[in-house]
């Protein structure tokens, strides 16, 4: 698809701009839907009904929220480092946005079929840490600084189990290309890597328990990477007020918000591509053409987004040292053991 767009605008930068802007077509509607979904899911878990007045069952409320944020005064504290303060939210968003370049939405469309896909995702998504640290420091607020330092420690720690879990799957698949990973799993639900991948039965049976553990590690660690409860300690509202984005208002705050939701989809999408077949239909070749691929991808992605929302409104928050404990003493050793086992299986079969 990218080639086709470029061929429409020969000798012009316009083609690249259009390709670059394409993910926005997805992110903006997705954010609106997810804000609505989160509020409604939370409400129904808590015996409430959430918004009901703007539009049918409050469906227009996310638009109203965004309109409100647009109108809000954009406050920059006098004592803040102005340049960094303004730059930070965009940097956070860039880190998230850049990962959309490699997400394979269907077999026809992936922004770039990069061979180092997974490596790229892990590397680029770390840029958000810089943005968060920057926002916390530039705000000149002690609570923000606490939030930023916690966020930095947390995201850096949790990248290790995520990376180890993903690498184990890469060893099985033999590729880092997210598009190729999806294609490998397109032969129906039992070809997905969570069920051992498209291999002979013995190898599959050996891989299934390991894959399941790896999936749990990836799910937990990715939840920590997007700073959501039970790992939302960087913005723990009962401790740090709002963490690194305490001082932000108006559109800058909205961009933090958007980045958080976009990031939520990215980590869910990575889980989907690596373990759950990406755009592949669960029924093999049935319902597996054109638009259906996009449908399956978004559906699976939203399923994991919903799981994140569900856990957020169920569980209490961990403490900062317990969070580190989970990462370094539980997830990382398990991921390492899994990686070694996967290596042995790959070598012997």
């Amino acid at each position, binding site marked *: 698809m990218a080639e086709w767009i470029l061929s429409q605008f020969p000798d012009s930068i316009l083609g690249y701009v259009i390709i670059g802007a394409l993910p926005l077509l997805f992110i903006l509607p997705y954010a609106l839907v997810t804000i609505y979904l989160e509020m409604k899911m*939370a409400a129904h878990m808590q015996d409430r009904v959430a918004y009901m007045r703007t539009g049918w069952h409050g469906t227009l409320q996310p638009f109203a929220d965004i309109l409100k944020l647009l109108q809000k005064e954009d406050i920059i504290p006098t004592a803040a480092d102005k340049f960094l303060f303004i730059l930070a939210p965009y940097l956070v968003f860039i880190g998230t946005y850049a990962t959309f370049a490699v997400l394979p939405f269907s077999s026809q469309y992936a922004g770039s079929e990069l061979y180092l896909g997974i490596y790229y995702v892990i590397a680029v998504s770390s840029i958000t840490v810089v943005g968060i640290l920057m926002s916390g420091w530039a705000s000149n607020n002690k609570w923000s600084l606490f939030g930023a330092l916690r966020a930095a420690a947390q995201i850096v720690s949790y990248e290790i189990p995520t990376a180890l879990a993903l690498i184990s799957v890469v060893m099985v698949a033999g590729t880092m290309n997210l598009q190729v990973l999806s294609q490998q799993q397109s032969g129906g639900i039992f070809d997905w890597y969570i069920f051992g991948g498209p291999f002979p039965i013995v190898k599959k049976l050996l891989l299934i328990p390991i894959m399941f553990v790896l999936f749990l590690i990836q799910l937990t660690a990715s939840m920590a990477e997007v700073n959501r409860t039970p790992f*939302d300690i960087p913005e*723990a509202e009962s*401790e740090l007020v709002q963490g690194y984005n305490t001082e932000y208002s108006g559109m800058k705050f909205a961009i933090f918000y958007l980045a958080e939701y976009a990031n939520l989809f990215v980590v869910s999408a990575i889980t989907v591509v690596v373990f759950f077949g990406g755009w592949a239909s669960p029924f093999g070749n049935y319902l597996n053409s054109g638009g259906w691929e996009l449908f399956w991808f978004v559906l699976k992605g939203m399923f994991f987004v919903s799981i994140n929302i569900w856990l957020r409104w169920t569980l*209490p928050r961990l403490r*900062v040292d317990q969070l580190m404990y989970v990462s370094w003493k539980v997830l990382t050793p398990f991921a390492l053991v899994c990686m070694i086992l996967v290596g042995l299986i790959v070598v012997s079969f």
Partner: protein
Amino acid sequence: METVLKTSHGRTLRTEEMVINMGPQHPSTHGVLRLELVVDGEIVIDVIPHIGYLHRCFEKHSEHMTNYQQVIPYVDRMDYVAAMNNEFSFAIAGEKLLKIQVPERVEYIRVIMAELQRIASHLIAIGTFGIDIGAFTPFLFCFRDREKILDLFEMTCGARLLYNYIWIGGLSHDLPPEFIPKAKEFIVDFRKTIKEINDLLSYNHIFIKRTANIGVLPADVAINFGCTGPMLRGSGVNWDLRKNDTYSVYNKFDFEVCVGKGEFGTVGDCWDRYMVRVNEMEQSLRIIEQAISTLPEGSISSAIPKRVRPNPGEVYGRAESPRGELGFYIVSDGTGTPYRIKARSPAFVNLSVISEISRGYMIADLVAITGSIDIVLGEVDR
């Protein structure tokens, strides 16, 4: 705790403690409490509570009323989440001063109201404690059931938060006929909610990890600081004014005093204080059940004095509020207004122990400790 590090160039780097304000505008100080924290990174070295942001001169105002009855709405506004218990306590002091014997029915209704209010107050304590730990959903479950209690109050006296219901010598209204069936319905429903709260919060692994062994208050420290209520009982001390200095008709009911047992950590930690409140709600239900089934007939206003003009003298009346021993010391000079009123506020006394029990824990733990003390700033500052 100042550390001096030498860099490779021979220059010195110093680490310093940071002073940071928690409040008065902070989500988890339960009102306008300001905690001045001295922190070393995330570790709390010292906590200095600053109070007085909600001071409304209750005691001074009371001296300038036209009569004793007018003090009761002010008493409501002290501990605004447990107004019934405040009124109850003040009425006990006032009746002691006037040497009035109130009818049996009045005492029974007062006990029902006080225990319903205790449940409502503990629901707020439990719910907001959950929020402090990061669990939002139990809070709304708590408020859903608190709403039912407020409906019962509204049905009885028309008000939902500040009632002016328990008067010296009687009550403002009798129970409406539909109160008893509604209250029975509530008791049945609420037993389910307690189970729900236990499943969702009390025995949640993360919740236990966050609260067990945190903010341990040993029994001797609790007694030395004068802590009362769930704070004291959480430390394993069996002390409840309803049993130990029984008042009203509490001696006619069968209930247990819940104490902290240190099930998941040390006796006197945040989890114990929390669990004492959960268990007390069950005991309050038992008291309400018994009181409803044996409610005597009679007048509710026969003992209300036409004119309150006590003899000169002084009196101290106390009762067990959800936060502990709430007492009123009243000095009368023989006129229709009190010469002096002093409130012994349990929340104030309980709060004083915070710097003692939160040193060395982390900021996140301090939030848990503040939540487990269950302060109401209206009562701390008065």
